[in-house]
């Protein structure tokens, strides 16, 4: 463990050194360019600029490579270490993420014109299969002033739900960071549903293709658990139950598995990743408890 952290620290320092070189070269190049434009052009300025340009490209390539190497090593070590300690049947692809078509089919968020992600994890917890990845969905406007609006930045999780059903139910947290709403106009069958829990109705909006389906899936126990999750985690939470699957989108503006070059690598990084995994563990625990509880009620 200690050796691995030392190795990661070496990689981080190396990336920081290249970053430093790149910064110095860029600063000098800007200074020279300033003289080139506004001052008397000394002899050989063009050559000097060319030299700086070559060095700039050279340092950029090395910086990018060393940073990628550090990030990859960090993820392979910490993420895998955490995953292996709690999940089974792990398949982890740091560069992969859910397809745009899959996310579009959930009607949770608009997709804008910039879509990217990473850290696709497929695994199972207590026998329940799930998948998750980090996503960044933005819309860049090109007008007089270019603006970038972030629709979604955070974690997206998909579970196999323990009840088989056909239809659509969405639970959307009203407060918190706003996610641009999904296109309900394309989903004409969705109607607003009010649960018997008034506090839940104040915090969340519920829409469903059939209100009986909403009550079937959102049992009092599931409602309580969703409220517990809402208290525990920052950011807006959206749950979508679609044809036997449960999607949980946490728009918290974070990417937990992305290390920072300016932060020292310590063992605490594993705790941070573990904290993010608690949503999955919590919800699967809830679903399994739900099954046990239904069986207990039936047996009475």
């Amino acid at each position, binding site marked *: 463990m200690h050796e691995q952290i030392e190795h990661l620290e070496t990689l981080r320092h190396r990336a920081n050194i290249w970053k430093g070189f790149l910064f110095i070269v860029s600063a000098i190049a800007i200074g020279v360019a300033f003289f080139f434009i506004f001052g008397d052009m000394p002899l050989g300025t063009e050559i000097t600029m060319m030299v700086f340009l070559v060095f700039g490209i050279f340092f950029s390539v090395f910086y990018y490579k060393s940073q990628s190497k550090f990030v990859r090593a960090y993820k392979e070590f910490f993420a895998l270490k955490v995953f292996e300690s709690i999940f089974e049947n792990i398949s982890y692809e740091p560069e992969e993420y859910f397809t745009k078509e899959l996310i579009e089919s959930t009607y949770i968020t608009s997709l804008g014109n910039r879509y990217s992600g990473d850290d696709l994890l497929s695994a199972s917890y207590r026998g329940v299969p799930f998948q998750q990845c980090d996503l960044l969905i933005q819309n860049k406007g090109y007008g007089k002033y270019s603006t970038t609006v972030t629709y979604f930045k955070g974690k997206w999780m998909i579970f196999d739900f323990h009840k088989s059903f056909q239809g659509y139910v969405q639970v959307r947290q009203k407060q918190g960071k706003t996610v641009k709403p999904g296109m309900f106009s394309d989903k004409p069958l969705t109607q607003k549903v009010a649960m*018997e829990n008034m506090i839940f109705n104040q915090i969340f909006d519920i829409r469903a293709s059939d*209100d009986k*389906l909403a009550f079937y899936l959102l049992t009092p126990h599931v409602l309580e658990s969703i409220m517990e999750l809402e208290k525990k985690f920052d950011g807006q939470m959206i749950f979508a139950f679609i044809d036997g699957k449960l999607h949980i989108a946490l728009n918290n503006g974070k990417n937990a598995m992305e290390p920072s070059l300016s932060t020292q690598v310590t063992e605490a990084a594993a705790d941070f990743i573990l904290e993010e995994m608690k949503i999955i563990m919590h919800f699967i625990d809830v679903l399994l408890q739900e099954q*046990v*509880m239904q069986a207990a009620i*039936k047996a009475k």
Partner: protein
Amino acid sequence: MVYAIVFGALAVILIIWFIAAYNKFAHTKIKVQEAESGIDVALTKRYDVLVKEMEVVKGYAKHEASTLSEVIKMRKGMPIEEKVDALKSMDSMQSRINMLAESYPQIRANENFKQLQLTVRDVEEHLQAARRAYNANVTIFNKLVVSFPSLILAKLFGYRAFAFFVAEDAKREDVKMEF
């Protein structure tokens, strides 16, 4: 002139409120009726499964079959109180079937019975959902009936509060869970 405008504006506001409140009543009443029909469907399913279970049990426990002779009253359009009674009778019958199944391992081993037990669980979950949907819509409707100013409209059109589908005492108790 000014009085006429004020009076006209008030009349328009009143008409808009009247239409909105009437539609709210009508819409919620339909939702309650829909939810009640959901309860009917779930109760009928539960009854059908229970009858099938009884047939299987009677095949193995001929002597104890008399304990399963309770009549469960089910008819179309019965009021919610009678539905609650029907559900209580079904619960009582289910308990007796479960007790007999405990005494006869052959019943528990019967594939048809196992399948029916799984169906019972699913039907009960649907019944619970239908009951909650009904009660949630009844709450909204009953609030309109007793709140001012919508109670004026309720009196005018003779709307009365709906009865809740009250869960039986046994289901209200805490469930002991073992993991």
